[in-house]
């Protein structure tokens, strides 16, 4: 993806969010699945606070509870115990007929398999979450076109998903996640189904969204390249946060080499000046 819509070196974030305000607080969160007679713990006593404008990567081996955590945060799954505070609202206490509003207004979902509706074109997919929010058809279309332009899909608005590449489909999904200006973007393996070129485009796009728009992003990923382009990296194991590390974006949204401090591109594997690997995935998992 050669087209970069948002410049990473733009100095001032244009976020309407106040940075530092906690948008997500997890308190003593536990989630237990019951399989037959066995209780399988997916999350146990997990505590986490994410502030507005943060870009958090959640990593961990299979079965560590990553997706469960994301689902609980996204209010599409309920915790067994503990609290989920979203923008100060206790979502874990809300009934299902209220939760959909949280999902619609506070959350934006990005899926590994994109999950676009195949019978709707790109614009219509982006308009979908805006339904039921009292916006006129024209406003919805205008907003959808803006968002599609922002993710680099100007001129492809009327294409159906099957006529878009995987990367383009994920861009549409990102635009859809942004439609209602959510407090948090939840991304579940957003690069998992993409080839390396498309993957880098998506990594760049998410990074730029966070840097320039101040979008809060919580991303579950297996991909170290995707993970290091965040501010915080959480390593999840057995339903607990085992390790927390700083990402490349941690240094005031500047992209610099952690070894020599030289400016780097988000997609660089090695520092262009000191030639050291910028982030080794081994490092994260060697605990």
């Amino acid at each position, binding site marked *: 993806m050669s087209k970069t819509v948002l410049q990473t070196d733009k100095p001032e974030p244009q976020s309407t969010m106040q940075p530092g305000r906690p948008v997500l607080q997890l308190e003593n969160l536990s989630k237990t699945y019951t399989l037959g007679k066995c209780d399988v713990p997916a999350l146990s006593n997990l505590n986490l606070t994410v502030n507005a404008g943060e870009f958090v990567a959640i990593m961990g081996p299979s079965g560590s509870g990553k997706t469960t955590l994301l*689902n609980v945060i*996204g209010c*599409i*799954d309920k915790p067994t115990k503990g609290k989920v505070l979203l923008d100060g609202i206790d979502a874990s206490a809300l009934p*299902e*007929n209220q939760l*959909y*509003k949280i*999902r*619609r*207004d506070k*959350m*934006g*979902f990005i*899926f590994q398999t994109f*999950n676009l*509706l*195949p*019978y*709707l074109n790109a614009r*219509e997919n982006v*308009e*979908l*979450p805006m*339904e*039921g929010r009292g916006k006129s058809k024209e406003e919805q279309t205008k907003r959808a076109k803006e968002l599609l332009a922002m993710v680099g899909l100007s001129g492809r608005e009327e294409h159906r998903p099957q006529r878009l590449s995987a990367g383009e489909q994920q861009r549409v999904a990102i635009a*859809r*996640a942004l439609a*209602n200006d959510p407090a948090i973007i939840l991304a579940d393996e957003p690069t998992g189904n993409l080839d390396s070129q498309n993957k880098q485009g998506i990594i760049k796009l998410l990074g730029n969204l966070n840097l320039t728009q101040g979008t809060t992003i919580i991303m579950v990923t297996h991909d170290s390249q995707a993970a290091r382009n965040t501010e915080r990296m959480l390593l999840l194991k057995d339903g607990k946060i085992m390790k927390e590390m700083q990402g490349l974006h941690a240094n005031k949204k500047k992209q610099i080499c952690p070894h020599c401090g030289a400016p780097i591109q988000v997609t660089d594997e090695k520092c262009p000046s000191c030639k050291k690997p910028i982030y080794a995935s081994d490092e994260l998992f060697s605990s």
Partner: protein
Amino acid sequence: MGIVSRAVRNISRRKMRALLVIIALGFALSIMISIPAGVLANEKTANAVSSNLSNLINQTGATINQTLTQIDCSLGSSFSGFGFTAPSGTSGGTGTYGGGGYGGYAGSGSSSSGGGGFTPGQFGGGTVGGYFGGGAFNGGQANPMNESLYTDINSSLSGIAAVEPVLQASEGNNVTRNLDFNGYSRTITIRDVTYTIEGVPLTSDLSSYMNQILPTNITAGSNLAVGDSGDVLLSENNSAYFGAGVGDSVNILGQSFTVVGIYSPSSVADTQMLYLNLSDAQAITNNTGYITSLTVFAQNSGDVSSVASEISALHPELTVTTAQDKESALSTEESTYTAALANADASDSQTNSTAIEEIVVVVLATSLIVLFVMLYTVKERTKEIGTLKAIGFSNSAVMTQFMLEGVLLSMIAGVVGIAIGMVAAPTIASTLLPSVGAVPRGTAGATFIAGTARFGALSVATLTPEIVLLGFGLAILLGTLGSLYPAWRAAKIRPAEAMRYE
């Protein structure tokens, strides 16, 4: 992007499935609307049959009443030499029928060759005389009587509703035949009748008795009417004999008459009978002042025997007969019609209950089709439902989406069903509903009813706008019923589980 266009796109996305479902539902709905159409048609037919039968029953009842009140008066058997002088100049005149007998004007004997008077002279004497003499061959044939009898009976007796004077005369040729009897051989002359003139009173006081006075089965033209003169009503045989149709003129005994109509005879006795006004008949047969029979109508059936005996007392020379025997025949006919009516009613109600059963079955079947198709659709789109809920669709929005798809599908099917029904309703209705064929065929007078009552001839099973609306309403109702549960299932899908579903 509205919910409706999403539903449309979802349906068109699975074209083959939608097509199959629409065809299946369309046929079911066409059955559903054809059945009420058939029921309506059936009711209409049954009503027509009922009213036809009721009319027939009433008519038969009226005929029975009139027959019961009817008293036939005539001058017994024709005895040659009875003392009646035949008018001169007519065929079969005095010469041939010796003894002043009036044999020439034979009645409508049941045999076409009957009616000729025999000259007593020819058969006189011996054993033969005993058999042939005295006009035994003229049995049942009326002899002319003076018209004064009519006035006499009409004015002097009570309990009489009307008196119908009739003059009957036959026209034909004398045929000579050899006759052997007990070794005796005789040459006799008999009449070969070509037509019989029935002079009937076309007077206003008898206007309510015209159905009995005149034939009713008119096949061409019209019947004689009160006051007609110079007109003739021919039987089909007469028409062939004269070679004349309606509007033509025919020559009867030297006088020209206009044919007003042609009737189909109801019995062998009238095959050669043509009807004229009494006064015309009297004039052309030179019988002015004479009649051959009187039919007296008593005011009610209870008076018949007293009136009959009064007539006998007043004029002992008259043979007075009442038509009791006709009554039983007519009663049988009446009971046949009554039974047919009951059959038609029973058949109608059976049709209705069958229709209800069939509609229940079709409604169930149709709902099940929608149910299974929508359940399958929901299962197939579990992931999509999860996505929709994750991006903020409420349960009710998801439910509405799937309900709408089901309803839309059945609405399209409804249109297809109505289209099929427009063409096939008569066939479907007659296949599915028992016919009203319970009306007896071949019974006199019932044939035409049977013709209209055959359910197979169901061009009447047409779709009224009400039925079309009903069908469309049913389609929507079934779509709603059938997709209610699947849509509820869809709404209840938990997004986390849906996301894991592949």
